């Protein structure tokens, strides 16, 4: 499974990277939105994890760009990972095109369940377990 994590804070990247390793997955990292979008162009991923507050382009705008694509990658599942607790944030993210919202501090099993669920739903029956 190929996972991309777009997040500006190095500590957070490290935490999620180690978590995914526990799950047997090696993830790719992008320190901000622009390089993340570039990686989506150049590489293949099964799912994207996205932070919200980043310098330059923020997470929701980046998701908008992904959804605006004209190829199959426009349907990539996206999980927002954030510490933001504003009311209605979940609705805002879903409206912007995200599929799920995980609130920091992240519970490892929640992350895995969310990844498993979204990858299965989007992959349809072509997903190979």
């Amino acid at each position, binding site marked *: 499974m190929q996972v991309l994590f777009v997040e500006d*804070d190095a*500590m957070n990247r490290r935490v999620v990277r180690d978590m995914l390793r526990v799950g047997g997955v090696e993830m790719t990292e992008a320190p901000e939105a622009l390089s993340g979008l570039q990686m989506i162009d150049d590489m293949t991923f099964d799912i994207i994890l996205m932070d919200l507050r980043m310098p330059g382009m923020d997470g929701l705008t980046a998701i908008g760009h992904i959804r605006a694509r004209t190829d199959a990658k426009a349907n990539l599942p996206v999980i927002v990972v954030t510490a933001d607790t504003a009311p209605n944030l979940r609705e805002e993210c879903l409206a912007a095109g995200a599929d799920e919202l995980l609130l920091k501090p992240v519970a490892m099993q929640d992350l895995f369940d969310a990844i498993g669920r*979204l990858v299965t739903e989007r992959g349809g029956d072509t997903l190979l377990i």
Partner: protein
Amino acid sequence: MRGLRRLLVIVGFASLLPLAASAAPAVPSAPTIDEAKAAMLVDPAIALSLAAKVEQAARHQPPSEARRIAVATAQWVRAEAMIRLNNADGAAPLVSSALLAVGNLQPPIKLQGDLLLSRAGISSSTGNSPKALQDYLAAYRIFSRVHEARSEAIALQDIGSIYRDAGNSDRALYYYRLAEETFPNDPKLALSNANNQANALYELDRYADAEREFKRALVLATKLDLPRQQLKIFNNLALAQIGTGELAAAEASLARAMKLSERPESAGYRPLVLGTAAELALARKQPRAATNFAESALTGAGPDAVTQLYRRVQWSAYQAYKLEGDGPAALRHLEIFKRLDDEGRALAASTNASLMAAQFDFANQNGRIAMLKAGQLQRDIALNRLQARQNLLILGSLLLVVSVGLVALAVNLRSLRRSRDRVRAANNRLTVVNAELTEALLAKSQFLATTSHEIRTPLNGVLGMTQILLADRSVTGMVRERITLVQGAGEAMRALIDDILDFAKLDAGKLEIHAIETDLPRLLDEVVAFWQGRATEQGLVLTLDRPDCPERVLVDGRRLQQILSNLLSNAIKFTAEGSVKVQVGMHHGGDGEHLKIMVADSGMGIPPAAFELIFEKFRQLDAGTTRRFSGTGLGLAISQTLARAMGGDIGVASEVGVGSTFTVSLPVQRVSPVMPANDRGNPVADGLAGARLLLVGANPIVQGVLRAVLTPCVANFAVVPDFAAVVDRAHGQSVDVVLVDATALHAEPGGASDLLELAAATQHLPVRLVVLWPNAIGDELAPLRAADFQVISKPVTGSELASRLAECFAAVEPAVLVKSNVVTVP
């Protein structure tokens, strides 16, 4: 500055006098306590000895609440006397003792507020501003509850002064204005208020405004015939006038101050007036005069010359000597000034930081004040509008009668204009108050949002890493214990932040209740199971009794879980030994069915007087409880608000030393149980519909994927960490199909032979064993097949996996399977 605060204290004390007779209980000592209070304004030493006698007499009475109050009142008077006699150290223990005696009285009495004011004054004079602020705020709250507007105003002014000490004159001004609004009718209070505002404005370099306020204060000081106050005000007025450049006016004010300082009782203030003269001379570009004045001031000050009081004078001296060209002298004074300035700034900065938290709390309070005011003003506006309309009606009918009407016309025009003016004024005030309210709420929301966000991010690092470490099974023993401890502490922090955030949302009215179909028995079981560990640790017996519990109800499960968890947490926390019993039942009332959950513990119990108190925010039984049992005191407040938002409530019954029972009552709707929808519509997968599936050995991501794929197809999907657990479940007859992910097994010590052991352990049981094996071809898997393992080769698609599993399930017979030819691989 200190003197002005003293004046405030005197005013506050004096405010007690007319009320003394009604406030003090009818005990034989009553006349003497009033004498003591009256003596305070004349000679504190007399007041001290009188109050001591009162206290003696009061102690001879039989113990009762009245006696406690009488003793505490006498102690308070003694403490106030000592403060005036500059004996703060002697006063402090008296105040503490008095607060201990009457601090918990409900409903609160004014004495509690007065004691807090005294304590705050002591804290403030010893430089402990945050503690002082805390006490001032608490005093303010008490005065609000007992409707003592004058004391409220005093507390507000004191708060303002704390902020001035922290260098935050803006905020200080705000509180001074609020104080003025709260009680404008007392001339002494008005005097100190005008002075405070003037000083704050001066700090903000708003010299013209400061001048105006000093003049207002001057009028009051003259009216009240207080020459010492007049002296100080003239001095400060002169400084303000130097600031606005009105040097002639400054000279005049200074002359008045000089004259007043010639009186013997004001002699101590003279050096400061000389200091002001130095500043005026500098403004006039007369360095020689300036140095002369400065030196006289510093000489007259004696040892005080190098303290904060004379910081300005040191600066004036430096500037004067610099202008004169006397380098060494200038340097000398500059060094002293710099030291004083640095000290002052450092103190202000640290005070300011620790005040920010209190600031948030007061924004909260203020928001509520503003809301109340807004409500009041709206009522005023409505009333005034009504009057205006009435006046209009009268006006109209009188116009018909021409001759008499002319006279009446004039009269009514005037009252109409007055009503209109009042409406306009009220509208203006409402706009201001609304702006304040919005600002207060915005500040609070921003503070909470930022804090929550800032704390969650590093917490993600802590909890993320502990989860990762604990997921590594090679971490064992003492190391695992320690990491588990860190995780527990991190979880506690997270719960705390969630609590605070909930509280904020509740406060802002942003709470959402989502009632959905919920498996109630399962929810109750899970919550109780969660707390079982902690209960056992403390040696308590935790039981759940839920006969006739409806299977499915329409309720906000998350919130119900939150309430129950909170009650269980409290029950376990406050019970040293014995049991915690949870009882669940349905009650049929006039307005439908109610779910009733009772949490009964055999703990320390709660006194009836505190029944309402414990549900208040930030409250625990008493300060001692808060220290012994950690917690924000928010839990019950949140739980009750949640319960009420859901249409129900929480009640408490208790006996001290025996135990407490908290009862949650919520209106709920039963829902008829529905079979889980199978949206695959696949006849083969339907075959799995009744199966209880157990997954073992899968790495977490595969777990997540398989959970997503299979949960819609099966009756029950569960995950266990090892084969021992599989065998347990199999014996317990709670599983039909066992799915093993072999990829993960390669990391296990036993590998494939463990699988055969598993087969052997379950051979007599009606379970089907299935293994997911990568690229399963060839004979290597023959032993597994012989042991009746179904082998499914990876990779496989979701639907194919489901159909293969369905086949296996169909093959399970309820009768015991007898297997033959089990081949054991060495």
